[in-house]
C-alpha cells in the first residue's frame, strides 16, 4: 500500500534556490532581446508646476539617441492609470497620466522618455532635454493644503474621506468613565525591494510581449491593452524571477505603459531598468499618516469606543491601490479587541510628493501603532496592568464571526473568522518569559534603561474574488501547474508543488510549477494581500479533483471498468490487477482548469513581545529580545513561513527606527540613496524569535489556511514605542511619532527632563 503524500506542512527545501544560489535566476535586467534599445526617463525636478514646453532637439542630435517621447507623441488624451482596487468614480480625477500632462505634480513624475543604443547614452541625453516648467506653490504638509490646488477643478486637495463605523460611538463616549486622546504620526517610508523595477517590451507587429510583470499581471494586461488600444489577446505579460515586491512592485506604474508604448512606436525591443535613486522617487511610497484619536473606556479597562480623524498624505495622485492603506487604518484599528463603537474618518490628502500605495500590512502597521500606544496609555492612566487590560478586551472565539467596523464609501464589511487570541497571547508571554523579564521594566542597568512591551494584532489575507489554476498531465507523466498567482520571492513554486503533490498524490519530483504569465491561465489575479497560498492553493485543490476525475474517466475506458472503480495510486491507475501509467493514458496532454472563488478574508493573528534597552544620553535603542507568535490556521511550509515572519518583523523594525523618506519645503526628496534611506542590516537586530501555531483552522477554504506573511510587520511600531515608554517611565516619556530614531528619543528625554525641572522649580517657588 502506498503511503499517501504529505508534503503540506513539511519544511521542504525550495526548488527556486537551485538557480538563485548559482546566480542563474532570470530577473528582468537579465532579459535581452535581439536589436534591443534602452530607455531612460526624464523626471520632473520640480514638485509642482505647469508644463510650458519640452525641447528635445539637442538630445535627438546626440549619436546613439533614437527617439524622445513626450506627452505630445501620444494621442490627444493621455491614458491614465485606473484604480485596481476601490475604483470609485469620485477618485477618477486623481488618476495619474502615463506621462506628465500639462502639469507636473511631484519630483520624479515622468516628463519624457529617451530611447537610445545604451543605458549610458540614454542617461546622457536626459541632460540635453530642456523642460520649461512654470513653478507653482508646493504643498507638502497638511497645514499647507490651501497653498495650491493639485487639481484645480476639484477645489480641494482632499481626494476622499472614508468612514469606518460600528455601533454608536457618540453614545459610548458619553457614558464612558474615561476618555483619552492621542495625536500620532507615522513617517513616510516604502517597500524598497532589492531588485529595481524594469521592463523589456517587444512588439512584432501583432503581439506585444512584455517581460517584467509581477503581482497583478492580468489586471495590468487589461489596462495596458486598453491604453494602447490593442485587443487583450495581443498583449502578453511575462513574469520572470522577481526580486521582492512587498505590495509595491507589480502595481501599474507609468513605466508599465511607457516602455511598451515606446517599443510599439520605435518598432524595436525596448529595455528599461530603474536605478535606485529613480526608484526612491518613482515607486510607491507608503504609510505617512497623522491621527487624532480618542479612546473611551470603563473604569475596569473595557474599551467602549474609538473616535477620531486620520489624515493620509497620499502624494500627488491616487494610484492603483492608493485607497487601501487609508481605509485599513480606519477599518482595522480595533484589531483583535472587541470594540463595539467606532467612528473614524480617514481623509486622503493630495500633496506634491510621490504617490503612495500598499506596502506590507498596509494601514495595519500604522493603525496598530496608534491602537497599542493608546492601550498602554489607557493602562497607565487607569492603573491597570497592561497585560490584564488586553486580556479583558480580546474578542473571544465564541464571539466569532465577529464583525469589524464597516467602511464607506465602497462599502465593505468583514468579520473575524476564528481565533483564540488569549491562547496565543499567553503562549507568546510564556515563550518570551515575561515573568522573568518583568523585573527589568524601567530599571537602569549599565547605563541603559530597560523596557518591555507586548501587543496583539490581526492579519487579513486571501483577498478574493478568485484565483485560477491549470493542471496539465504531460505525456511524459510529469504534472505542470500553471497559476494565476505570482512569485515575488515567497517560495511559490515550492509551496504550490507541495499542495499539488498532496492533492494529486503524484510524486513531488514530477511536479513543475509555472507562474505569472498571462498566457498561462485565462484570468489570474496575482499575489497580494497574502492570498497566494489560500487562493492559488485552493484553486489547485479544485483543479486536482477535476484532474483525478478525468484520469479515472480515461482509465476506465482502457481498464474496462467504471470510472468510480478506478483506483489512483501515485502515477498509476488501477483496476484489480491491471494498471496503467498516467503517461500512457493518452497521446495528448490532459488539461484541466479550475478556479477558487472567495469573498471572505481570512484572519491570521498573533502576539509579539519585546525587551529593549535605551541609552537616554544618545537615544539609541537596543532590541535585546523579540518574540513573535502567530496562528495561521494551517501551515504549508513552515520554513518559508518562518522566513517570511522574520523578514517581515525586520522590515517593521526598519520602519519603527530607521526608514524615512524626507521631503523639504520645496517638495524635493532629500532621501535619494541607501546612504540616506537606512534599512536594517545584519548587525542591527540579531535577536528575533518566532513560533507559528495552528490553533484555529480557517472555516472558509478547503486548505483551512489563513493568509500569512505580512503579519510580522504589523505590531512592530506599536510595541517598540510602548517598550521605550516603559523603559523611560521614570521621566514619563511618551513616544507618539515614528520613527523612533535616536535624535527623536533624545529630544523626548530632554523635553521630559526639562518638564521635571520646571515642575521642581515651580514647587520651589522660583
Amino acid at each position: 500500500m502506498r503511503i499517501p503524500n504529505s508534503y503540506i506542512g513539511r519544511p521542504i527545501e525550495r526548488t527556486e534556490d537551485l538557480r538563485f544560489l548559482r546566480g542563474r535566476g532570470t530577473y528582468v535586467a537579465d532579459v535581452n532581446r535581439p536589436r534591443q534599445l534602452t530607455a531612460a526617463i526624464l523626471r520632473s525636478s520640480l514638485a509642482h508646476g505647469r508644463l510650458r514646453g519640452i525641447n528635445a532637439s539637442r538630445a535627438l542630435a546626440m549619436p546613439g539617441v533614437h527617439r524622445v517621447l513626450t506627452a505630445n507623441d501620444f494621442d490627444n488624451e493621455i491614458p491614465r492609470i485606473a484604480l485596481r482596487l476601490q475604483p470609485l468614480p469620485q477618485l477618477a480625477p486623481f488618476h495619474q497620466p502615463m506621462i506628465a500632462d500639462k502639469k507636473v505634480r511631484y519630483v520624479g513624475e515622468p516628463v519624457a522618455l529617451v530611447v537610445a543604443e545604451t543605458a549610458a547614452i540614454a542617461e546622457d541625453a536626459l541632460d540635453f532635454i530642456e523642460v520649461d516648467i512654470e513653478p507653482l506653490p508646493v504643498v507638502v504638509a497638511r497645514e499647507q493644503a490651501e497653498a495650491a490646488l493639485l487639481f484645480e477643478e476639484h477645489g480641494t486637495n482632499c481626494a476622499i474621506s472614508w468612514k469606518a463605523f460600528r455601533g454608536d460611538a457618540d453614545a459610548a463616549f458619553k457614558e464612558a468613565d474615561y476618555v483619552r486622546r492621542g495625536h500620532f504620526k507615522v513617517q513616510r517610508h516604502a517597500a524598497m525591494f532589492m531588485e529595481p523595477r524594469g521592463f523589456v517590451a517587444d512588439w512584432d507587429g501583432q503581439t506585444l510581449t512584455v517581460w517584467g510583470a509581477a503581482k497583478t499581471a492580468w489586471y495590468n494586461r487589461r489596462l495596458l491593452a486598453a491604453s494602447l488600444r490593442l485587443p487583450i489577446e495581443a498583449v502578453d505579460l511575462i513574469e520572470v524571477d522577481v526580486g521582492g515586491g512587498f505590495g509595491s512592485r507589480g502595481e501599474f506604474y507609468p513605466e508599465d505603459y511607457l516602455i511598451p508604448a515606446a517599443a510599439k512606436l520605435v518598432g524595436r525591443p525596448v529595455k528599461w531598468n530603474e536605478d535606485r535613486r529613480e526608484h526612491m522617487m518613482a515607486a510607491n511610497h507608503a504609510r505617512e499618516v497623522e491621527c487624532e484619536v480618542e479612546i473611551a473606556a470603563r473604569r475596569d479597562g473595557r474599551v467602549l469606543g474609538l473616535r477620531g480623524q486620520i489624515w493620509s498624505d497620499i502624494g500627488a495622485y491616487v494610484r492603483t491601490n492608493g485607497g487601501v492603506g487609508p481605509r485599513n487604518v480606519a477599518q482595522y484599528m480595533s484589531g483583535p479587541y472587541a470594540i463595539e463603537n467606532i467612528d473614524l474618518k480617514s481623509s486622503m490628502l493630495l500633496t506634491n510628493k510621490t504617490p503612495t500605495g500598499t506596502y506590507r500590512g498596509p494601514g495595519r502597521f500604522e493603525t496598530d501603532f496608534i491602537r497599542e500606544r493608546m492601550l498602554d496609555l489607557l493602562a497607565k492612566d487607569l492603573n491597570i496592568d497592561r497585560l490584564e487590560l488586553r486580556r479583558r478586551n480580546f474578542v473571544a472565539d465564541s464571539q466569532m464571526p465577529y464583525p469589524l467596523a464597516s467602511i464607506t464609501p465602497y462599502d465593505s464589511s468583514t468579520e473575524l473568522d476564528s481565533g483564540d487570541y488569549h491562547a496565543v497571547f499567553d503562549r507568546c508571554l510564556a515563550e518570551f518569559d515575561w515573568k522573568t523579564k518583568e523585573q527589568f521594566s524601567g530599571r537602569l542597568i549599565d547605563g541603559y534603561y530597560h523596557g518591555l512591551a507586548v501587543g496583539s494584532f490581526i492579519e487579513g489575507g486571501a483577498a478574493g474574488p478568485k484565483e485560477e489554476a491549470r493542471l496539465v498531465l504531460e505525456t511524459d507523466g510529469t504534472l505542470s501547474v500553471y497559476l494565476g498567482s505570482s512569485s515575488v520571492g515567497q517560495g511559490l513554486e515550492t509551496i504550490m508543488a507541495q499542495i499539488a503533490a498532496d492533492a494529486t498524490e503524484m510524486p513531488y519530483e514530477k511536479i513543475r510549477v509555472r507562474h505569472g504569465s498571462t498566457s498561462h491561465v485565462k484570468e489570474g489575479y496575482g499575489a497580494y494581500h497574502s492570498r497566494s497560498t489560500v487562493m492559488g492553493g485552493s484553486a489547485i485543490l479544485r483543479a486536482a479533483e477535476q484532474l483525478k476525475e478525468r484520469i479515472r474517466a480515461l482509465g476506465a475506458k482502457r481498464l474496462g471498468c467504471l470510472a468510480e472503480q478506478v483506483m489512483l495510486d501515485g502515477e498509476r491507475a488501477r483496476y484489480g490487477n491491471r494498471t496503467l501509467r498516467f503517461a500512457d493514458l493518452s497521446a495528448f496532454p490532459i488539461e484541466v482548469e479550475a478556479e477558487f472563488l472567495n469573498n471572505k478574508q481570512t484572519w491570521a493573528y498573533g502576539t509579539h513581545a519585546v525587551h529593549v534597552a535605551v541609552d537616554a544620553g544618545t537615544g539609541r535603542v537596543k532590541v535585546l529580545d523579540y518574540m513573535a507568535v502567530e496562528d495561521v490556521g494551517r501551515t504549508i511550509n513552515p520554513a518559508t513561513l518562518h522566513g517570511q515572519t522574520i523578514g517581515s518583523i525586520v522590515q517593521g523594525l526598519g520602519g519603527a527606527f530607521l526608514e524615512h523618506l524626507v521631503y523639504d519645503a520645496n517638495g524635493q526628496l532629500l532621501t535619494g540613496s541607501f546612504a540616506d534611506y537606512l534599512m536594517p542590516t545584519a548587525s542591527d537586530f540579531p535577536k528575533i524569535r518566532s513560533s507559528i501555531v495552528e490553533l484555529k483552522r480557517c472555516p472558509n477554504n478547503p486548505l483551512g489556511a489563513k493568509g500569512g506573511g505580512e503579519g510580522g510587520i504589523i505590531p512592530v511600531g506599536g510595541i517598540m514605542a510602548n517598550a521605550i515608554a516603559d523603559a523611560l517611565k521614570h521621566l514619563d516619556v511618551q513616544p507618539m511619532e515614528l520613527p523612533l530614531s535616536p535624535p527623536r528619543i533624545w529630544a523626548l528625554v530632554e523635553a521630559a527632563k526639562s518638564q521635571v525641572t520646571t515642575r521642581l522649580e515651580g514647587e520651589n517657588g522660583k
Partner: protein
Amino acid sequence: MKLAAFDYASPATIEEAVALLASRSGNAKIISGGQSLVPMLAFRLAAPELLVDLKQLQGLNRIDIAEDGVRLGAKVRWCEIERNERLKGAHPLLVEAIRHVAHYQIRNRGTVGGSLAHADPAAEMPGIAITSEAELMIVGSKGKRIDKASDFFKGSLSTSLAPDEILTEIKLPPWLVGRRWAFLEFALRRGDFAIAGVALYYDMVGGNIADIHIGAIGVGDRPLRLHAVEAVLNGRKLDDVAIEDAAKAARESIDPPSDIHAPAEYRRALLTTLLARALRQSAV
C-alpha cells in the same frame, strides 16, 4: 545611474600622474580605491574629463613604523591597517578609529589617501589626522610640499590640494608608551558615517592630564580640534568636575550642522556625551 563619459589613464610613475593632472586644468581627478569617487560619479555629482588611476604607482602603500612616527602611504587600504599586527601597539588610536570605517567590501579597496583627499567632515581618517597633528606629504607640478593637517582641511569635501597635486603619504607623530586614549563615535548603524565622534589622547604627568589632544568629527564642516576643551583639561586631574567642565566647553565651542539624520542640537548634545564617555573610558 550610469557614469558620464571620461578618459582614463593609468600612468607608471608619479611624475606622469602629476603631468596628466596638470594637463586638464582642473578637470582631471585621481582614482585609486574609488570608494568615495565612484559613487559621486554615479550620481553625476562630479564630471571629470579624465581619471588618473594610481594603480600602477609603486611605493605608495607602505606602512612604516619608526621612532619618528607612523607613516602610511596614500594607497594603504583599510584592510591592510586592520591586518597589521604592529600597528595595534604602535598607534592604537588609529587602529581603533579605522575599525569604524565603512564595511568589509569597502575596506578592501578604500585608501588612506582617498579618505583624506575626499575630506568628508564625518570621516574617521581626517579626524585622526587632525587630532594627532599629522603631516601630509604632497606632490605636484611645483614639486613636493608638506601640509599640516590643521591647514589641509579647508571645508566640507575641500582640501588644500591643487588640481595637479597628489597626496602621497601621511605621517603621524610617534605614540608615547603609557599614553591614555579613547575613540568613540555614534552612527545610526554599524559602518555608517558618524553622526558625531571623538578621538582623544593625553599623557599623565604627576597625576594630571598633560598635552591632551581632542578631535571631533561630524560636528563641523571639517574635522575639528577642540582647543577650548583641551585648555580646560590640561594640567588637571581627570575627575567628575573636570569632565563636567570639559563637556560644557565642548557644548559651547562647536556649531554643528543639521541634516536629515540629526538636527544640530542633537549633534551638539551627542558630541558632549561622547566626550564625557570617552574621557571616562580613557581613565580605565
